[in-house]
């Protein structure tokens, strides 16, 4: 390997804490990235991975300070350079792509001009040459129709196209180092797959070394050669990506892998592992190993006192653990065994709790949902998947009565529900409750936990003051939170704790149906695993029906008994989870499944998706015929007609003309 592009040696970064002291967010990190190499920084929120990435650029947020160590970029000490020398590097020899492409683009300037600006400022090209270069760059990031796109404003582009434009801007000067901070987190799965393919292709065309910061191990697996797993500001394990993920040597890395739901597995085949406890907050780590309190193999007396160094673990690998050879395999830790894995009883064929028929919703001329038919039985989980804008959250709001449908019927235990929540009876209201996506906004920040739980106990369950308090305590226990939190404000809780409170609130009135709208997408994987397990346990105890909405197929596969796939407001496939995940699929389902980045590296490209960006059809008038026609690789002339539902047996049905085709065994047009 030649001289590294980036070399970090003993880097320690601190931030001021609210109490006036400074806490170390990154501690003693050393790493190197060679030209053309891609290094992934993995870890959960608060582990210091973004801070480390920005320290490597000498672009720390306000208050951040390099306390010790050095950063060398192409051999020169970055923190010894003057401001003007730094400006010569930023944007020219080192570039960044952020998580939210909408925020990185100036909304008042066409994207082509924003890229051309880079050429004019850094390379001194004149206006015409810079524009040509910008269009050329858009073409290199596989933007369809770059000449036209160059004249569009950011809001006229879909999320995926915006991110391509940002990447084009970052690569315009052919930088030596490209830092990618969660570059696909804000994107839909199919778009994410396209962007990841793009990175893989660009790595061959450009010389940039990549530093990819991410929490999704599947994403890192697709792009990076080497991986560094961070915990509490330290690198706890590093090594070649495939080898590290196949057999992690640090207990944290192993536990983290065990938390990740895999698209091939459902809850009936066993619970997800989860990591008990919370990571230490920055600057409060003790003298020993920072993972000691959550570690299944720790010798507390020894590990709590002796700080482990990075022990070498074979070629190119190292783990910060005294007992690395004892590290359990992912998914076999103590947490799994303790959780028990009694299978969820399969729901019977009784009358459905929720029966939605012919439901539609339109806002002005825009049809958001069209003719939706769904059933959910008691104790059953129906997973609802689809990309952003598919109308899945709207469906939940309609069932909850927070939006009034434009047509169709919603029945709860056979009785029709009024369109608006206010017009429903108290009994009906307590029977249908909802858990929202973001626990930060779902709890009133000015209310204590006790009050948040007592109010619904009084309003919905009609309890008196003392009984409501008692109920609140019982609910805290149900969601495995300490009773002491009852007087806390939401801001004093972690994200996972807040979501548990929101779940407890939904269960106050012993609901028949709980609507779960992306309940874990704002949480870290280890927390997500614990929350998913909690939801399964509550369902087993209460027999509630779940409508589980998610864009994450692996999570849906884990949670759902049956799955319904929604595309642009129409159902295209519905059936038992294991059947939906096995062919034959609807072409759209196929594209969704293919797009999921898998930990074993088997992910295919964005399969059937040939129509360019997912959101391309957005805002256009709905064409007659199959909704998926424009993006479908298998589409034929018949697809101009609305496709019929075809029954594939076992409750599995697909709305498609071409699948199952001649090659697929099951099913005839019904």
């Amino acid at each position, binding site marked *: 390997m030649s001289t590294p592009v980036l070399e970090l040696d003993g880097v320690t970064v601190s931030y*001021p804490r609210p109490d006036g002291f400074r806490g170390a967010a990154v*501690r003693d990190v050393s790493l190197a990235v060679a030209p053309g190499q891609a290094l992934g920084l993995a870890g959960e929120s608060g582990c210091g991975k973004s801070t480390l990435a920005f320290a490597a650029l000498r672009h720390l947020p306000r208050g951040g300070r390099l306390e010790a160590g050095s950063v060398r970029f192409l051999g020169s000490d970055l923190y010894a350079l003057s401001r003007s020398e730094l400006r010569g590097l930023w944007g020219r020899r080192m570039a960044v792509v952020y998580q939210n492409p909408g925020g990185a683009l100036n909304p008042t300037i066409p994207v082509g001009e924003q890229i051309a600006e880079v050429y004019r400022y850094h390379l001194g090209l004149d206006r015409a040459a810079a524009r040509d270069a910008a269009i050329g760059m858009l073409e290199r990031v596989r933007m369809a129709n770059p000449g036209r796109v160059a004249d569009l404003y950011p809001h006229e582009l879909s999320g995926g196209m915006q991110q391509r434009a940002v990447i084009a801007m970052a690569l315009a000067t052919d930088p030596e180092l490209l830092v990618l901070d969660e570059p696909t987190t804000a994107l839909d799965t199919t778009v994410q797959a396209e962007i990841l393919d793009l990175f893989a292709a660009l790595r061959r065309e450009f010389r940039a070394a990549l530093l990819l910061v991410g929490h999704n191990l599947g994403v890192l697996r697709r792009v990076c050669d080497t991986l560094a797993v961070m915990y509490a500001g330290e690198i706890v394990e590093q090594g070649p990506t495939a080898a590290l993920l196949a057999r992690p040597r640090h207990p944290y890395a192993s536990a983290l892998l065990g938390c990740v739901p895999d698209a091939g597995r459902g809850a009936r085949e066993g619970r997800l592992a989860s990591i008990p406890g919370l990571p230490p907050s920055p600057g409060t780590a003790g003298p020993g190993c920072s993972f000691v309190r959550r570690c299944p193999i720790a010798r507390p007396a020894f590990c709590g006192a002796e700080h482990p160094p990075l022990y070498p673990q074979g070629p190119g690998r190292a783990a910060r653990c005294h007992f690395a050879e004892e590290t359990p395999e992912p998914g076999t830790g103590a947490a799994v065994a303790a959780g028990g894995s009694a299978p969820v009883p399969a729901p019977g064929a009784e009358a459905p709790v929720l029966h939605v028929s012919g439901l539609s919703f339109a806002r002005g001329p825009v049809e958001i949902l069209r003719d939706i038919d769904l059933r959910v039985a008691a104790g059953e989980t129906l997973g609802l998947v689809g990309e952003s804008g598919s109308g899945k959250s709207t469906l939940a709001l309609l069932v909850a009565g927070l939006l009034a449908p434009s047509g169709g019927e919603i029945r709860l235990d056979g009785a029709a529900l009024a369109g608006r929540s206010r017009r429903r009876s108290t009994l009906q209201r307590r029977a249908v409750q909802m858990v929202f996506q973001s626990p930060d*906004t779902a709890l*009133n920040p000015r209310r204590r936990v006790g009050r948040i739980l007592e109010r619904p106990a009084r309003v*919905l369950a009609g309890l008196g003051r003392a009984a409501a308090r008692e109920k609140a305590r019982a609910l805290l226990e149900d969601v495995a939170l300490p009773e002491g939190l009852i007087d806390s404000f939401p801001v004093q809780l972690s994200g996972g704790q807040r979501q548990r409170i929101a779940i407890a609130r939904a269960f106050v009135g012993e609901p028949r149906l709980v609507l779960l709208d992306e309940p874990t997408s704002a949480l870290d994987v280890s927390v997500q695993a614990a929350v998913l397990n909690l939801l399964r346990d509550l369902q087993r105890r209460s027999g509630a029906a779940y409508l589980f909405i998610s864009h994450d197929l692996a999570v849906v596969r884990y949670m759902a008994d049956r799955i319904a796939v929604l595309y642009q407001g129409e159902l295209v496939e519905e059936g038992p989870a294991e059947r939906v995940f096995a062919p034959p699929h609807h072409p759209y389902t196929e594209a969704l499944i293919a797009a999921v980045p898998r930990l074993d590296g088997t992910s295919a490209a964005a399969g059937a998706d040939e129509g360019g960006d997912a959101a391309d059809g957005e805002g256009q008038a709905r064409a007659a015929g199959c909704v998926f026609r424009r993006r479908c690789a298998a589409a034929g002339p018949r697809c101009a007609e609305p496709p019929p539902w075809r029954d594939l047996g076992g409750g599995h049905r697909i709305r498609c003309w071409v699948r199952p085709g001649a090659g697929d065994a099951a099913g005839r047009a019904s």
Partner: protein
Amino acid sequence: MAAPAVDLRVGRRARRMPPSLLAGAAMLLAWVAASLLAPWIAPHPPLASDFLALLQPPGPGHPFGTDQIGRDVLSRVLHGGRSVLAVAPAATALGLALGTTIGLAAAYFGGWTDEIAMRLLDAVMALPIVIVAMLALTFLGASTLNVILVIGIVFAPLVARTMRAAALVEVRKDYVRAAELRGEGIAYVMFREVLPNVAGPLAVEATLRLGYAVFTAATLGFLGLGAQPPAPDWGLMVAENQALLTTAPWTVLFPALAIAWVVVGIALVSDGLRVGQGP
């Protein structure tokens, strides 16, 4: 290998209040205390004329001088603070109550309710406040209660705009959805769920309006639409003595300074609250 030997501790820093908040609060406290204690600390009764000491410049017997019928300016300024103390907070409270209700309702209901409420408020705000107040007081008659009502009502649209803007962010949050889902009434959602979360902007708005209320009350007094002679009212005092501005400036200067004192004090508190809220 031990943790890096870096001492990350800096001195514990006390949470400090913004200096403008402290200064403003001190000014206002001085005013409130002086107004409440006026009957005991004022050297003379506010209405008593000393015909042997007409238009005396500030001196040992009369620190602020006397006016043209020999009344002690200091005593009148001290007593004049009492009417401001009654009018401004009451008018502000009325304006806040009306404006908050309208603003929260417009934000919560949105759509047509919001459109209509906002256009009506625009129409009211297009009229100059003093002209509206003059018209109303001419019809209703000048009295303390009417001054409070009029100022309160003309302030409501301004408050409503601010509160609507603050509440628009909150009403979209899911805790409001959760309250609707358990069937809470409209008033509960607006005042018990949303209002506590816009308390910060409300506090800033309250101090801002209070300052304007002091100023508007003085203006109405100056125009003869508030307190009537011989009452010791700051605005009225400025009006009565404006002809003497060149010959006996102290008769105008001290009531004017008193108005400025209170308005600046309130502005400093308002500023301090805004800084304290921070981003």
